[in-house]
């Protein structure tokens, strides 16, 4: 855990070589998972066949690999990445390693909106509006939580508690819609609530990628302020941070990241909770490396979950969310229990 310094002209940074080594290792693992995911499925491909499917535009399996599997894997990675970063950011701002995007009402807002859309609007308007509805729901809920928690500024405690109240109310709305809508809607709603990347296409991937880039750039610019977020308000003010303004900005970024991820993939819970925990181990107090690690762990978790969901019970193609919970929960509990010790 030795920190190094990097200076180039006026540019200067501290960095932790071990953390960046882990970033590199994770990237390698991700490439590997990507290749395996491309090869596995209802049609199994050997290395040679996979190469041909990727390179040769006229290969018979090219369509499966390039138009079905690749966008699906990339969408999974993007969703996981966005949720991982959102969760990490929230844990910094809330000063608590147990915070997750569900806490500030983002997931429940998106869920209530998406389920209502599925119940009443999916037939007349088609499925293309679903991400929009979910995003609006997420934004509305996050804004409502922030406003209701405001009283001479917001504090993490009040924010979390208000978020829990809001999540319960919106959860009730979701349940209500589920209970009074026909069972066919209920099932697709449950799939959405579990989280799934089934049927992803390239336009989904490019839209979500654009959103992620648009949100990660300002976050990278604010990284110094993110690292002050875990301090007391008084200390942070003393160090020259405009606490409330930055808190609002960071919360908006986190909500937006979680919101877009949920909009395209459904209510994947846990990614935002587990990925930052994995990232925080061994990465010291260095902000950027931790964020990148949370991003990569999140992406890897959803990619793996979708791989398992799509191949383990062939010919069934299950929602990836099931396995995010199944893979993530034991990890999460083990980490937490060890931390408490």
């Amino acid at each position, binding site marked *: 855990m030795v920190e190094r310094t990097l200076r180039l002209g006026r540019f200067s940074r*501290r960095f932790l070589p071990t953390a960046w080594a882990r970033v590199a290792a994770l990237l390698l693992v991700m490439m590997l998972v990507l290749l395996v995911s491309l090869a596995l499925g209802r049609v199994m491909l050997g290395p040679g066949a996979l190469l041909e499917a990727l390179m040769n535009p006229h290969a018979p399996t090219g369509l499966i690999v390039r138009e079905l599997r690749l966008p699906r894997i990339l969408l999974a990675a993007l969703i996981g990445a966005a949720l991982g970063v959102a969760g990490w950011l929230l844990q910094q701002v809330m000063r608590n390693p147990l915070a997750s995007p569900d806490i500030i009402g983002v997931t429940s807002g998106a869920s209530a909106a998406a389920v209502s859309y599925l119940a009443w609007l999916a037939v007349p308007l088609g499925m293309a509006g679903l991400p929009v509805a979910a995003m609006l729901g997420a934004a509305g809920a996050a804004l409502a939580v922030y406003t209701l928690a405001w009283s001479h500024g917001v504090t993490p405690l009040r924010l979390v508690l208000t978020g829990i109240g809001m999540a319960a109310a919106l959860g009730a709305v979701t349940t209500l819609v589920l209970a009074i809508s026909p069972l066919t809607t209920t099932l697709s709603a449950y799939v959405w609530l579990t989280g799934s990347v089934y049927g992803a296409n390239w336009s989904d991937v490019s839209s979500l990628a654009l959103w992620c880039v648009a949100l990660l750039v300002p976050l990278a610019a604010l990284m110094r302020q993110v690292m002050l977020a875990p301090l007391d308000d*008084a*200390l942070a003010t003393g160090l*020259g941070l405009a606490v409330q303004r930055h808190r609002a900005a960071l919360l908006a970024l986190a909500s937006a990241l979680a919101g877009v991820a949920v909009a395209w993939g459904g209510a994947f819970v846990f990614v935002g909770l587990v990925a930052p925990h994995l990232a925080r181990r061994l990465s010291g107090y260095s902000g950027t490396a931790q964020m990148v690690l949370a991003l990569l762990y999140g992406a890897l978790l959803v990619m793996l979950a979708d791989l398992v969901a799509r191949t383990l019970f062939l010919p069934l193609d299950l929602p990836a969310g099931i396995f995010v919970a199944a893979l993530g929960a034991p990890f999460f509990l083990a980490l937490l229990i060890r931390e408490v010790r």
Partner: protein
Amino acid sequence: MATVSAHALMLGYQRRRILDQLELDLPEGKISVLVGSNGCGKSTLLKALARLLSPWSGQVCLDGTDIHQLPTREVAHRLSLLPQQPVAPEGMTVRQLVQLGRHPHQRWLSQWSPDDEHQVARALERTGLEALADQVVDTLSGGQRQRAWIALAVAQNTPLMLLDEPTSFLDMNHQMEVLDLLHELNREEGRTIVMVLHDLNLAGRYADHMVALRAGQVYARGTPAQVMIPERIEAIFGLACRVIEDPCSHTPLCIPLSRQARS
């Protein structure tokens, strides 16, 4: 050099008024100590001086300019603050904590300049924490932990330091350790130090300038010898006492009288 002053300051929580038309200015390059009984508003005043609270009316001035008109980062170049009982994020080491003190001096481009490095090393040395630099803050003793927080303020390298009860909950030896350190910072580096202390005798020993608050206003100010006279102490704390000279430091020493001793 930097000074902080308050003019016609009114401030409180909810409807309750804590500070009432308070006037204050503090000498540069000295140790000023705010004293008073519980609830007299001394911590509130310190928070207002550090711009953590906005006044209802009146103003707090830093070098003659209203502190709320200045960019908060600009203020952080001139004034550092150690709140009461600060909490370090879990698992943070002393070095990481002290590095945070460089925040106001950094820009997006330059986040670890040679000057940052130098100031952090100097702060660690100044506070005698070099050997403990890679320890996790939570594992330190009370006195060491408080020194680490002071090191953060030292790394921030401001001419003015505000501290809210830096010795509370510390054993007597650790109280002395912290106050001696602040004394050195003042005498050797000329930093202006403003702090709240609840122990009148320690305040008398270390203060160049003592400000006694009562009911939200400045009741008395001056050298400890001017403020610490039995009648004034009785008015400030409601405490009958006798004042003698400290045989070691020759500062005033307040001996509280028990009910039996009075009668």
